[in-house]
Structures are given as structure tokens and as C-alpha cells.
């Protein structure tokens, strides 16, 4: 492809949509991480592993139904719940005993969790590549601006904003959401008014991990599911929540859009170094605004 062809309107538009749908997946995963970061103030290193478990569980649930559309929808509902259950067990059994300890220990705990979960996934599902099919309705592609755009990506473009709105409703309109926001700002005060902070933290952790699982289940039809997919996403998630402003949900959205779009356009400009563009964008943003684009909740 020569340069002139690469920058036609149709190529730009389709890359824009590709980047946008990638950004939606990133946003769903990162909003979960950002939520945990906001309330617990711990970057959850195991978040990527939970995302991977979400994808693998989706595969298992979908294959129970022999790849029928019902299987896909059930996988979308139950795979994140499996992840939430795993995170609840880890939180109640081990993590909750560490809240009084210093930050670094919490972070290293989540790293230990990542190491253990990574190998447990290998034990359970093995090292082969897996894939699941989207329902027939989402297969194939439709023409947009003269280039083919996968239907499933359109579905992602609808799901992303839905998750954003639900999260906003949850944190602003429900009691537990409001408590968790309060706990993010001043946990002593929340404890002082008689709320069990430990359970608020547990709820926040599980919700954050649920979102990781949801991201994993949603991404499953578009990628090959394999061990090692945790390593890729976690560093991206880290960077996105950092450039967005730690703990800020809308920051996670802004960060995901920047990350997804720079990557998609990078493929057009310089395919070999497409992976470098988002990282470079992150570095430029952090040099320009060291604490992220939007206000951190810390």
C-alpha cells in the first residue's frame, strides 16, 4: 500500500472505527481498574489475569452450548460472574487482611495473585489457542464509508457507552456507589459514620474485577484466547488509568480513546511501529500533565 492510498478518507474512517471499538474494550477493563484504584488505592496488577479468566470462562461456557447463540449470550452473562467469584474468594480469604499494611505490600499481593492465577489458567485450560464464535447476527461485516467494518465491532461500540452509563448511574445514584466514592476520598470518615469499610472495599474490588471479566468475555470472539493475554492488557490498563487521572472513571474513558485511536492510526502511518505510538502518546501526556488529563480522586 503506498502512502497516497493509506490516507484516503475511507481508510482513515475505518481505522477510526477500529480504534474506537478497541477503545471500548480497553475502557471496560480500565474502568474496573480505575474503580479499584479509586476506592482501594491499589493498582490491581492481577486485573489482566482476571480479564484472561473472563475470556477463558466465556470460551468454556460457550462450548458447553456447542457454539450456539444462546451459549454466547450466557457466556457474556456468566463469565464475568465467574471472575467476580474468583476475586471475591481472593479478597475475603487473603487480601482483606492486608488493608492496614503499607501500599507496596498490597501492590505486591496483587502481583502474587497475578502469578498464581496465570498458572492456574494454564492448569485449567492448557496452553492451546482457543476461540469462540459470535452469534450469526454479529458475523461478517457491513460497508461503512466504502470499507468493510466487522459487525461485532459495532456491537462493542454500543456496549461501551452502555457500561459507562451504568457505571455512572451506579456510582452517583445508588447508596453503595456513593459510599464507595466517599471511601475513595476519606476512608476514616466513612468508617467513623458506622459503615463497614472492609465490605465496601470488598464490593469495590469485586465490581472492578467483574468489569475485567466482562472485558475478557467481550473481547473473546475477536481474538485468539491464550495464556499470556494478561501481560499485554495489564500494562495498557496501567498506562490508561495513569494518563486519565488515577481513579477517575471518565479519565479511563479519555485514556482508552487516546490509546485505542493512536494505535489504530499508528497502523496506517507506520505499521511496524504501531505498538510504539500509544506508548509515546502516554509519555507526551505525562510530561505535559504529570498527574493525568482529568482530576485524580486521590
Amino acid at each position: 500500500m503506498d502512502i497516497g492510498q493509506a490516507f484516503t478518507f475511507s481508510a482513515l474512517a475505518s481505522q477510526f472505527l477500529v480504534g474506537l471499538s478497541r477503545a471500548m474494550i480497553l475502557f471496560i477493563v480500565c474502568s474496573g481498574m480505575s474503580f479499584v484504584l479509586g476506592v482501594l488505592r491499589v493498582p490491581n496488577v492481577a486485573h489482566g489475569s482476571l480479564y484472561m479468566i473472563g475470556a477463558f470462562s466465556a470460551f468454556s461456557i460457550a462450548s458447553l452450548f456447542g457454539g450456539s447463540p444462546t451459549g454466547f449470550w450466557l457466556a457474556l452473562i456468566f463469565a464475568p460472574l465467574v471472575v467476580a467469584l474468583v476475586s471475591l474468594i481472593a479478597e475475603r480469604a487473603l487480601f482483606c487482611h492486608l488493608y492496614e499494611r503499607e501500599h507496596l505490600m498490597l501492590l505486591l499481593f496483587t502481583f502474587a495473585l497475578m502469578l498464581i492465577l496465570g498458572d492456574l489458567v494454564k492448569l485449567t485450560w492448557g496452553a492451546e489457542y482457543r476461540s469462540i464464535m459470535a452469534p450469526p447476527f454479529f458475523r461478517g461485516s457491513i460497508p461503512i464509508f466504502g470499507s468493510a467494518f466487522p459487525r461485532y465491532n459495532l456491537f462493542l461500540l454500543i456496549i461501551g457507552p452502555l457500561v459507562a452509563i451504568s457505571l455512572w448511574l451506579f456510582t452517583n445514584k445508588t447508596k453503595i456507589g456513593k459510599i464507595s466514592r466517599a471511601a475513595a476520598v476519606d476512608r476514616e470518615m466513612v468508617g467513623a459514620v458506622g459503615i463497614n469499610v472492609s465490605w465496601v472495599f470488598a464490593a469495590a474490588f469485586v465490581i472492578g474485577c467483574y468489569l475485567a471479566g466482562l472485558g475478557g468475555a467481550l473481547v473473546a470472539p475477536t481474538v485468539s484466547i491464550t495464556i499470556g493475554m494478561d501481560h499485554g492488557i495489564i500494562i495498557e490498563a496501567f498506562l490508561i488509568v495513569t494518563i486519565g487521572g488515577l481513579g477517575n472513571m471518565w479519565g479511563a474513558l479519555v485514556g482508552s480513546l487516546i490509546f485505542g485511536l493512536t494505535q489504530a492510526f499508528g497502523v496506517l502511518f507506520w505499521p511496524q511501529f504501531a505498538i510504539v505510538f500509544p506508548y509515546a502518546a502516554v509519555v507526551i501526556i505525562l510530561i505535559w500533565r504529570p498527574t493525568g488529563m482529568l482530576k485524580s480522586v486521590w
Partner: protein
Amino acid sequence: MPIAGLFIVLLILPPIIPRFYTYIIALMFVTGLLAMSLNMVVGHGGMFQFHHCAFYGVGAYSLALILTKTTLPMWVGFVAGPIVAALVGLLIGWLCVRLNRLYFGMLQISLGSLIWAIVFRWYSLTNGDDGIHGIPMPSILSSLNSSYYFILIVLAICLVGMYLIFKSPFGTTLQAIRDNPQRCEAVGVNVRRHQLAAIVIATFFSGVAGVLFVVLERSVFPDLLFWVLSLEIFIMCLLGGWFTFLGPMLGAAITVALRTFVGIYTEYWTLILGVILILLIFFLPEGVLGYFIEKFKERGTNAMQEEK
């Protein structure tokens, strides 16, 4: 005195023990030096140096590239490795020290990942994810035993240097900054400049470790700069003891030994590493060496009280 004894034992070991063990001990030295250099910033400086192995990789790649791609004399590569690592450390450190705690760590992860991504993708220069193998070495380092001695001697020099820095007024100030940055600022210490200096020194030593890695393995690959390795070194520091001088060395030795011997029986090494880390966090947060030093002190004070 016990250290000198240990040094002599390590000097006479290679001809006696099997080649494989010589290699493992040399690997412990290299990893140990890397962990020690990280501990200068994390344990003694109290900074969240989350992507330390980026500098290790930069040191290793600098040497590898000079030896394979240029016709410069070989010693230039050995000198350039640590210096390039320190220069990258200066640049990244200068950007990072403006920030506090977690933001410091996050910015460093992003900058380190940027370096990793470039190394991973720049096929024409770094061979991308294949890495560079069969790097030519000076004839003096041709055998494993001579590499071992070279690594041991460089390690000894570095440890002496690190110890002098640790005990120097600079090192003491750094530890004071770790414990109470506000007070240090108030008494007129330039906190940021001290932290930056510590980062540059530590990255220099990690560059040395990178060079030694190339001497031992004769190959480099992008995993050297991957963030998972950075956190593994973190575990080594924790395992040995943050607040001790030689702790990270011990932690690295234990980790390398465990990985080697666990690897014989099972492929699930990271599972075991994770369990070890959780046990450490819950039961031994001050590390193995820290624990023994504490015990030793306790016995000392008990004995003194009995004397009274």
C-alpha cells in the same frame, strides 16, 4: 571476615563443581547485582522504581549492539553498557522525580514500556522478539570459568562501591529522605536532586548487571526489559530484606536456586513464586536477612539484660 571467607570459597569453586552449578552461581551473581541496584532506590531511597529492568536491558543491548553491529574495540561496549544505562536513567529519573509515589512508578512503567516496545519492534536493529544470539566475546572470556571469574570480580568491585555509597553521607541522607522527606526538605536537603542522583547510580549498576548478563549468556532478548521481570526483582528485594544491605543478593540467590530446582519437577514455577510471595507478605515482610538480623539483635539485647 565471613565475607572474605565466602569470597575465597567462591574463587576456588568453579574447577571443582559441575559446569551447570558454575553457571547457576554466576547467574545468581548477575541477578543479585541487579536486585542490589534496585534496592538502592527502593529499599534505601524509598522510591517506587517499578521498571528497573528497563535499564538492565538497555545496558545489555548497548553491549550486544556494539559487539555485533559496530567495529569499535570490544572494551568500548563494556564501558558503554553501564554509561548508556545511566544516561537513560538520568533522563527517565529526571522526568519521574517530579512526581510522588505511585505516579512516579506509573510514569516509569510507561517510559520503560516505551523502550521495551521500541526494542521489541525495531527488527532491523535489535532483531525484535528473536533477540540477538551468539554475541562474540573477547577471547579472554571464552570459557565459562573465565566468564565466572570476570563476573565475580566485577560483582565484588560493585559491591564495595555500593557499600561505600550506602555508608557515605549521601547514602545516609538518602535513607533519611526515605524515612521523612518533609523534614529533610525542611533542614535544607535538596530531596529531588538526591533522589535523581540515587537513580542514576542505581541504573549505572543495573547497566553493569546487564553487561554481565551478556558475558554469561551471550544473548539478549526483549524479555530483559519486560515489566514482569521488574516486579520479579522487586520480590527478590522483599525476599532478602528491604532495609538490609546484602539482603537482595540473598533474595536473588534463593529465587534463582528455587527456579532452577523447581523447574526440574514442574513447569508451574510462577505459581510457586506467587505462593512464596504471599507467604512473605503475610509472615516475613522484613525478608529473610532482615528477620535474622532482627533475631540476632533480640538475642544481643536479651544477653545484655541478663548481664545486668
